[in-house]
């Protein structure tokens, strides 16, 4: 296992710049998730690390060894593809042993490693089947197994669970996480699903428009997002934003409602346009506070999700209790102290 680092990486296709200077360090045995909306460059970054695309500029090194100009086979990486990319004409056994065979390993050596990996992944009974005879989850495991037998310096995952149904996705998520712990390997994992990133990764890299927005542990990012984009991207349901202007210690929303935010807004520039952010689960019912009109009530069993309208803007609140409210009712909610976020409207920067 090994470290991986990327320095000032740029990639353009024609006149379109996909990666605009990305730097990142991944520690040995670390599980790093790259997240971001589609088109943010996360898959391109992964493909550059794999060597499937050539960097326009910048450096990549794996285990301290510069690999920027090396072919994929010389980088000692393994990759699991979104559509698994299994060889349809080969059995599960041959799929998993393919790289070892190319490397010229002995048949006995290959068999040992393949059997071992199959054991870990529960593929032993399927070794002589062809990919066409497997279910989606089984194919995913074979793709993972093909990567494991290589014992590479670095594992790369390109949205490996996005073709599975929701239930299977949750199960495989746990399996891959367990695998990471068991193999103590370095993994870079691309996903557009922030829950996957949150639950699996040691660190999350949030990307947007070819740039890294923020890097940090899942809870760091969740609690202290560096800007409104990161704040909005992580978390489900997503963070609420109330748009307005600072006026003394209060927030004047677009429709002119004046919300006083005790203790939170002191010291900011008067008149600054801001986004006031609050996560749905950080809102609580209160006798007085922000008055909110209930528009939709969604009980999920343990929780109740409310779509509220506060100062003319939609706000979601997730309450850890069962509620007897009806649409149209007026209620009052209060943000938990210290759990609100303020962002500059112009730049999105955290204030």
């Amino acid at each position: 296992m090994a470290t991986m680092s990327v320095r000032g990486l740029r990639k353009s296709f024609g006149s379109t710049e996909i990666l605009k200077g990305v730097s990142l360090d991944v520690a040995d045995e670390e599980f790093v998730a790259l997240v971001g909306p589609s088109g943010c460059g996360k898959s391109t970054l992964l493909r550059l690390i794999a060597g499937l695309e050539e960097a326009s500029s910048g450096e990549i090194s794996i285990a301290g060894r510069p690999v920027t100009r090396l072919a994929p086979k010389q980088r000692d990486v393994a990759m699991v593809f979104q559509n698994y990319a299994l060889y349809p004409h080969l059995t599960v056994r041959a799929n998993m042993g393919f790289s070892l065979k190319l490397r010229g390993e002995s048949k006995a050596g290959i068999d040992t490693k393949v059997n071992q990996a199959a054991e870990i992944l529960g593929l032993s009974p399927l070794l002589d089947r062809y990919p066409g005879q497997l279910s989606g989850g089984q194919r995913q495991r074979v793709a993972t197994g093909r990567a494991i037998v290589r014992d590479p310096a670095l594992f790369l995952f390109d949205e490996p669970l996005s073709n599975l149904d929701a239930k299977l996705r949750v199960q495989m998520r746990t399996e891959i996480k367990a695998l990471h712990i068991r193999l103590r390997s370095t993994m870079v994992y691309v996903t557009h699903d922030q829950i996957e990133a949150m639950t699996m990764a040691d660190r999350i890299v949030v990307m947007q428009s070819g740039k890294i927005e923020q890097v940090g542990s899942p809870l760091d990012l969740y609690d202290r997002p560096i800007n409104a984009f990161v704040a909005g991207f992580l978390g489900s349901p997503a963070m609420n934003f109330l748009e307005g202007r600072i006026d003394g210690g209060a927030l004047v929303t677009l429709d002119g409602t004046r919300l006083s935010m005790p203790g939170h807004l002191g010291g900011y520039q008067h008149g600054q346009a801001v986004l006031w952010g609050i996560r749905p689960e950080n809102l609580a019912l209160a006798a007085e506070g922000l008055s909110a009109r209930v528009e939709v009530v969604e009980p999920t069993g343990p929780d109740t999700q409310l779509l509220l309208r506060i100062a003319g803007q939609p706000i979601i609140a997730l309450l850890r209790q069962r509620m007897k409210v009806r649409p149209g009712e007026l209620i009052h909610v209060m943000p938990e102290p210290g759990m609100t976020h303020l962002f500059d409207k112009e730049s999105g920067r955290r204030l």
Partner: protein
Amino acid sequence: MLSSRLTPFLFLAPALIGLVVFRLAPIGIAVAGSMTGTSLMGDLSFVGLENFAYLFTDAEFWSSLQVTLLFNLIINPLQLAVAFALALLVFQQGRAIWFYRLLLVLPMAVSTGLSAVLFGLFLDGNLGPFNGFLEWIGIGAQAFHRNQDQALGTLIGIATWKGAGYWMLFLLAGLYSIPSSVQEAALIDGATPWQRFRLVTLPLMRKPMAFVLVADTAINFLFFAPVYILTSGGPSGSTSVLMYQAYLSAFTFSDLGRSLAISTILLMIILIIVALELRLLRSPEDHAA
């Protein structure tokens, strides 16, 4: 009210009727006709296997059979290989790649007969420009379709010129249907370009290749127009394929029974060879499934 049991057959009926009328009936007529003889005055009679017995004792038939088999033994693998090579060449991104593709597919638009006529003019020993070129570069004029040893090769060349681009299309579509991620997986697994071709591309092209080989075989066993137009089976019988013999029997010798007997034999040969080809190109994953 229609019985629901009948419904599926009614839906299938147009296809089934088409199959019978356009495929099975002609074959049936050919096979039945191969066992008839026609008198000069047009009286049809059943002669059993006489036409076949005659053919099997006819030196001309055996030599024609030999020519047909030799022709197909060379042209089918050759066209497949050339079409595959062309498909690989134009299977890439790049500016103006469509232009090369168009160039390769263009001969398809020329009818077989016309392409034979064009090549006849092009290769003509007296007026054709190609021999002038060969003399100029020092190889010297060649007789091509007028030479017993070169005629079959010349016809193979013409047929390949016309056919390769067409078959290339199928193989190109096949190449496009291989997911790029599978190639990338091989790349990451450490395969060299040659290993990727041999271990990934080639096995995954089995189906399109089998289709091309089978369809091409069926067409090439019925190869006729260039023989008829350029060589009339000559020189000295070197291009006298069975189809040409079938043509002569029907339209020059007024012996329809013999012509149909030759057609029937051709049909049998095609069936056997296509069965062999399909067996040869069967994918292991299909076998298992």
